[in-house]
């Protein structure tokens, strides 16, 4: 189980997280929803060791990891899929995947790559193609695939749906469910709250660096505050008046 308690963190002297506590049970998908600037990315980067918390602790199965270097955290089985994918665009799909395999012994690499190709057959067809020439959806698959090469127990995903067409997003989320089915634990940061809550078991709502709602996805989908703020237009009840033209 991944557990955070009272995590305060930020960058450049600007504090983005004000005492965040959350937990993710093994083999579950938990989502963190919130608007831009709520601190979602900061939270994932802090777990991944890219930022160090000013206060509080982060534990994996009861062991503190918040002081560890990012490499050590990857070796513990936590992999981050950053926002905007951050692929090595001049390199091939295969080479991008190989870069993700650096914490693993050489003999396991081929097997890990096969697993990624089974999950994302589209990547197998394009393994020699340069990453920069892939479509947005394929790039996202590659970013997730690269993280999976480290055979992580916990996957931290930052906005996987960003910039993707709905069909591709659905495909990505389908594979997330498949991953969870294989026992991979997922902490999913998403602006598309409805989609995230459909795939996740539980969720948290982060507002200006503070968690204000916690619950099962079912509860969050019924929560009017969540509906109003994150599920957007059309989330109201059918008997509600339509929003005024041009309003939002």
């Amino acid at each position, binding site marked *: 189980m991944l*557990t955070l308690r*009272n995590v305060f963190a930020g960058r450049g002297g600007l504090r983005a997280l004000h005492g965040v*506590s959350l937990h993710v049970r093994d083999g579950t998908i938990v989502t963190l929803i919130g608007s831009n600037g709520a601190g979602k990315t900061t939270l994932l980067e802090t777990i991944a060791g890219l930022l160090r918390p000013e206060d509080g602790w982060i534990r994996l199965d009861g062991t503190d990891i918040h002081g560890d270097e990012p490499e050590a955290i990857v070796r513990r089985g936590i992999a981050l899929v950053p926002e905007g994918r951050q692929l090595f665009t001049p390199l091939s799909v295969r080479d991008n995947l190989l870069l993700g395999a650096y914490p693993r012994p050489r003999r396991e690499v081929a097997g890990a790559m096969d697993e990624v190709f089974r999950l994302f057959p589209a990547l197998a067809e394009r393994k020699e193609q340069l990453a920069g020439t892939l479509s947005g959806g394929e790039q996202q698959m590659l970013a997730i695939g690269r993280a999976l090469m480290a055979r992580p127990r916990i996957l931290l995903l930052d906005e996987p749906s960003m910039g993707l067409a709905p069909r591709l997003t659905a495909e990505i989320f389908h594979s997330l469910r498949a991953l969870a089915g294989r026992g991979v634990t997922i902490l999913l940061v998403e602006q598309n709250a409805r989609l995230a809550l459909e795939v996740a078991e539980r969720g948290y709502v982060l*507002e200006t660096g*503070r968690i204000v709602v*916690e619950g099962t996805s079912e509860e969050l989908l019924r929560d009017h505050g969540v509906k109003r703020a994150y599920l957007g237009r059309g989330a109201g009840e059918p008997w509600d008046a339509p929003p005024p033209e041009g309003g939002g």
Partner: protein
Amino acid sequence: MALYRPEWEAMAPEEREQIAVERVQAILHRVYREVPAYRERFDAARFAPEDLKGLEDLPRVPMTDRAALVEKRPYGFFTVPLREVVRLRAAPGEEALVFGFTRNDLERVRDLSARVLVAAGVTADDVVHIDLDYGLVNGAFALQDGAERIGAAVIPRSTFDPMLECRVMEAYRATVLLTTPSRLLHILNALRGSAIDLKDLTLRRLILGAEPCPEGLRREIADRLHLEPFEVYGLGGILGPGVAVECAEHAGLHVNEDHFLVEVVDPASGAPVLAGVEGELVVTTLTREAFPLIRYRTGDITRIDRTPCPCGRTSARIARVARRADDQIIIEGFSFFPAEIREVLARVECTTPHFQLIVRRRALHDELELRVEVTEDLFRDEVRRLEDLRRAIEDAVARRIGVSPVVRLVEPKRFSGIAGRPPLVVDLRARGPAARGSAPRSDNST
């Protein structure tokens, strides 16, 4: 015996603690943002939600009491706009409070009701007779929903007449009776001299709630029904009946700690008491959306037991609540609780459990006036009986509490009418250096 939600009820204590911290932090942030009344109280105490780093910091959070809620009636403590509320309920009392529930709140209340009923041994095979006043006891609807969720067959109270209710239980072979201690006494009294005896019915479980049950009364009930009662605790229906319940061990009430945090404080100072020491119960709701309560002083006296229970539930237990902190009356050096008067009245014919105590300061001594609501039956006899009854009550009360009251009989329905109960205790003495904390209910400022 079965657990309705084993994943929560038998959860590892460390995991429950993590969830409690997450939930209490979220609710503190939410009320600080959404409820000006809470924000003012927190600011005045120089407390910010992020100051709570663990449950050990809970005593730093300002407490809330009934007086604070009354001051901001009706909607001042609501966390969501009224359009998101799907049910409103009034809590009994002269200054009626209105509580709201969102859809999620009601869903959780139903689930918790099912939990407490399963803990008390109710199954899908049971016929549950709910002899509660649906108008006054807020938990009645929730318990009905909970019983139906388990799959039990429910018979809601249909009349006020205790004899008729007993015939219903007999005819439909009710296996579970769910009622209040005072109503049960009322039934037992009504059955005197009749052919029906509750202990001969098919009842196999007795569940009591909605009011404190002194130990003597509990023993008497257990003896007469040959059933050990299961008590449920729900804070006068404000939170619904699912706060805590006795398991089959009958050694305290398990608190549903994934939804409610409990503490015990010294009723006078408000400071936390040592583990296991008796004091006033303070409740914080972890999952309420419409009307969360933050460190609410319940006025109920209990103690907390965190030792493991053989039933498998890992939650803390509170001792059965036998009395309240704020209704304690001290007169001429004698102290007693209104519940004791209720017990006495239960043994006197032609009286109801509805009464009012008025304390006055006379020239030389304090005077206790006891107004007792009588039943219709009384008026079928000649007038002389009124005087006999008055004297019988005076004697019985004096024997019990050491103070002889001035008894006045009042007409039926005077106190039990639906229009809201009058205050149980009216203390007209000048506020002296009484050894009590704030006692909003027993003060009468008019």
